[in-house]
């Protein structure tokens, strides 16, 4: 059970605190409700590039990292389709430095052309390192635009194309900042060795004077229902074939979200997951196979991805995956298997809550979804899923018309 207190500043900033006196540290997480889905389709990758620019210093604090390191702290950040998330930990004695740093860059970052140019170059190298210079690295770059026709989830966070990053101007950057980096669009969560009263005082002192701003209205085109199966084959210089399959599912707050979460755990959670058991152990078709949900806020994806053993035919592998999927529709789960998946979920939930940083991140996400208390009901919600719900959900969503398949084939070279 994670206890928390909430508070909202006049400028709209939401503040949540979880006190944990067992640690000498404080973790701060600051979530901006802006992700790659908020990008202009001709400037994709902007939200992530912007995350890099947030570290470039301000008029008041020329270097972000230096004072944090001086206070014994460390930090990082990530961007995804929905949000941009910054986090740091430091000894509790020096917690105020975190409030000072984060409020300052929310108030007014100091963008310059030189800094923008360097970070474009860093992000280009990141693009190469993660997606272009790795075997199978571009698979997700191919799968998203195949699965989505309309919704901005169709492009990846790194961007659709490197040229988009290269084209970003300082005006684009300033515009993105004033649209999204405002208190009314942010959530501040603090976990660790700090009393809620003190955290609220510090939040009010440092963030209170930041103007509320006006959030750019979010008008995202909805993804139309997929009615025809989609398939794409590509050839790349890789050692063996790979298979990627995806189906559209509901949003993060939809009724079937937990069912899908359980369903993918059932398929690929742990060594005893069904896909692993059937296709890796019994039939030796794959060297690895995974299933997961993207956990996006808007309607997301169920993804199965696997690397085939050398020489295995891609159609045979695809068929074998479909057989495992069809079993979900044809028979109801045993209570033992259901209980297994639920127990694993509970364990990982408890384990995750041993980290103050995880707690701060989760509180932010659940606040964004409308209620941090959801965090304490996750296990219960997961446990409420029945075998019949899994079957119904599989029948309804895991259909051929709703499926997108990518055959990633090893070229002969």
């Amino acid at each position, binding site marked *: 059970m994670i206890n928390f207190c909430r508070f909202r500043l006049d400028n709209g900033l939401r503040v949540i605190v979880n006190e*944990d006196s*067992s640690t*000498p*540290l404080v973790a701060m997480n600051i979530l901006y409700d802006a992700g790659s889905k908020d990008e202009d389709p001709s400037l994709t990758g902007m939200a992530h590039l912007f995350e890099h620019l947030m570290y470039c210093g301000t008029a*008041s*604090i020329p270097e972000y*990292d*230096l*004072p944090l*390191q*001086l*206070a*014994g*702290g*460390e930090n990082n950040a990530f961007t995804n389709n929905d949000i941009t998330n910054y986090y740091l930990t430091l000894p509790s*004695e*020096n917690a105020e*430095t975190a409030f*000072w740093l984060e409020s300052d860059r929310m108030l007014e970052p100091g963008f310059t052309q030189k800094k923008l140019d*360097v*970070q*474009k*170059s*860093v*992000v*280009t*190298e*990141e693009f*190469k*390192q993660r997606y272009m*210079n*790795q*075997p*199978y690295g571009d698979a997700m770059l191919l799968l998203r635009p195949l699965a989505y026709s309309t919704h901005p989830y169709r492009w990846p966070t790194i961007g659709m194309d490197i040229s988009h990053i290269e084209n970003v101007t300082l005006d684009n950057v300033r515009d993105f900042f004033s649209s999204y980096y405002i208190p009314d669009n942010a959530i501040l969560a603090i976990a660790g060795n700090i009393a809620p009263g003190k955290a609220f005082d510090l939040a009010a002192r440092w963030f209170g004077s930041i103007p509320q701003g006006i959030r750019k209205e979010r008008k995202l085109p909805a993804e139309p229902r997929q009615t025809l199966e989609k398939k794409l084959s590509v050839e790349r*210089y*890789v*050692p*063996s074939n790979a298979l990627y399959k995806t189906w559209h599912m509901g949003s993060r707050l939809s009724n079937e979200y937990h069912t899908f979460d359980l369903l993918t755990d059932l398929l690929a*959670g*742990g*060594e*005893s997951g069904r896909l692993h*058991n059937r296709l*890796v*152990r019994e039939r*030796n078709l794959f*060297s690895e196979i995974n299933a997961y949900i993207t956990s996006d806020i808007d309607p997301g994806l169920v993804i199965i991805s696997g*690397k085939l*053993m*050398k020489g295995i035919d891609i159609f045979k592998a695809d068929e074998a995956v479909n057989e495992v999927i069809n079993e979900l529709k044809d028979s109801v789960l045993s209570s033992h298997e259901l*209980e*297994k998946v639920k*127990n694993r979920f*509970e*364990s*990982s939930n*408890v*384990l995750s809550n*041993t980290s*103050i940083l995880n707690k701060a991140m989760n509180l932010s996400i659940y606040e964004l979804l409308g209620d941090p208390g959801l965090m304490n009901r996750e296990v219960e919600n997961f446990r409420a899923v029945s075998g019949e719900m899994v079957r119904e959900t599989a029948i309804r969503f895991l259909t051929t018309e709703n499926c997108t398949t990518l055959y990633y084939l090893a070229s002969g070279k």
Partner: protein
Amino acid sequence: MTGFRRIQPQVYPFDARVDVPMKLLTLGNGASVFLIETGTEEIMRIEFVFRAGMVQEYLPLLANSTNMMMTEGSENYTAEELNNILDYYGIFLNMITEKDTAGLIVYFLNKHFEKVLELLVEILFRPEFPENELDILMNKRLNWFRINREKVQNIAGDRFFESVFGSHHPYGRQVQESDFGGMIPSLLKDFHAKFYKPEKMTMIVSGQIPGSASDSFERFFGGLGSKEIYTEDSKNRIIGAHVKKVHIEKKGAIQTAIRIGSASINKRHPDYPGLKFLNLLLGGYFGSRLMKNIREEKGFTYGIHSSVSSFDLSGSIMISTEVGKKNAGQAVDEIYREIKLLHSIPVGRDELEVVRNYMAGEMVRMFDGPFAIAESFKAVWEFGLNFNYFIGMMDTIRTITPDEILKLARDYYNIDDFYEITAG
């Protein structure tokens, strides 16, 4: 109006509580159990450590294959049953093979304590190494191996350790495709019998430990023994390669992986804490000199790091990065330039202060919570050291001088001794 924002809130001194109370229990058969009792959740972590690392293996892959096969069937359970039960109880198992040690880490909810111990006796001391499961594992791993060999960072990294420690020493030896076919059950059984001996086991237990735990450990593990088996001392010697500079061409690569460094001292050496400090300053944190120069000023890379590693028989220092192909030459030059600066110009006061505080903060994080403490303890225990090592480290962090850093740089970052491996 925003003038008050220019001044950092006061930075207070803080201290890592590195001297954690810990109990040592010796079981009836001589096995050691360290107990670190703290934590807020009803969850435990146990690490089981054996001197069964790669350094003991007489064939490549043997240590790792033996370790990974321990969950693939035992006297009383098939592989499928075992994995099913582990998952059923929400038990998370990480199998670990390192250069010097091997074993596993298990996380579980306290309510399953006894079940976990029962299963671990099976996994650790009654594995059967069935041939069918071994074949599947080896085929699977060969596939992973082929994929990893396509990554420039692996090509350069493997070649780096081969150059530093020699192609015949387990610390440096590279795995070949043909090695996967060489693993047969009898070899694994032999390796297991020699190096996974219950009386030589060390357990590091952390979390909310139940009062009855000691009795349970004794009951499950205290009575286990093993036959005496003669093990020959390894004849392997660490011999670095003569050729210091190697480039491996990788068709189609758009980045070049760079690995630069040499063999070095390990944790038992009195200079080690100082070397750690110097390493951090050079390339061990986001504000390091290498990150500032090569990422934040030149934009050549997404990341550049310098690391110091400690092994039983040796140690190593290594600078690693991936850069766009056209910038590789200049990146290498800049790495050497930064090292030469460390040789010639004493570190300034401001930078020294930042590194001191950042590193002290790292120490606080290394002792935050039962699982972090257990990890930190294992990292010194395996060198025959204890928490005093961290007290010494804190002392170095607080008191090291620019002159001492200069001397360490000259002694340990000797460019003439460095290997320079690039792949791309």
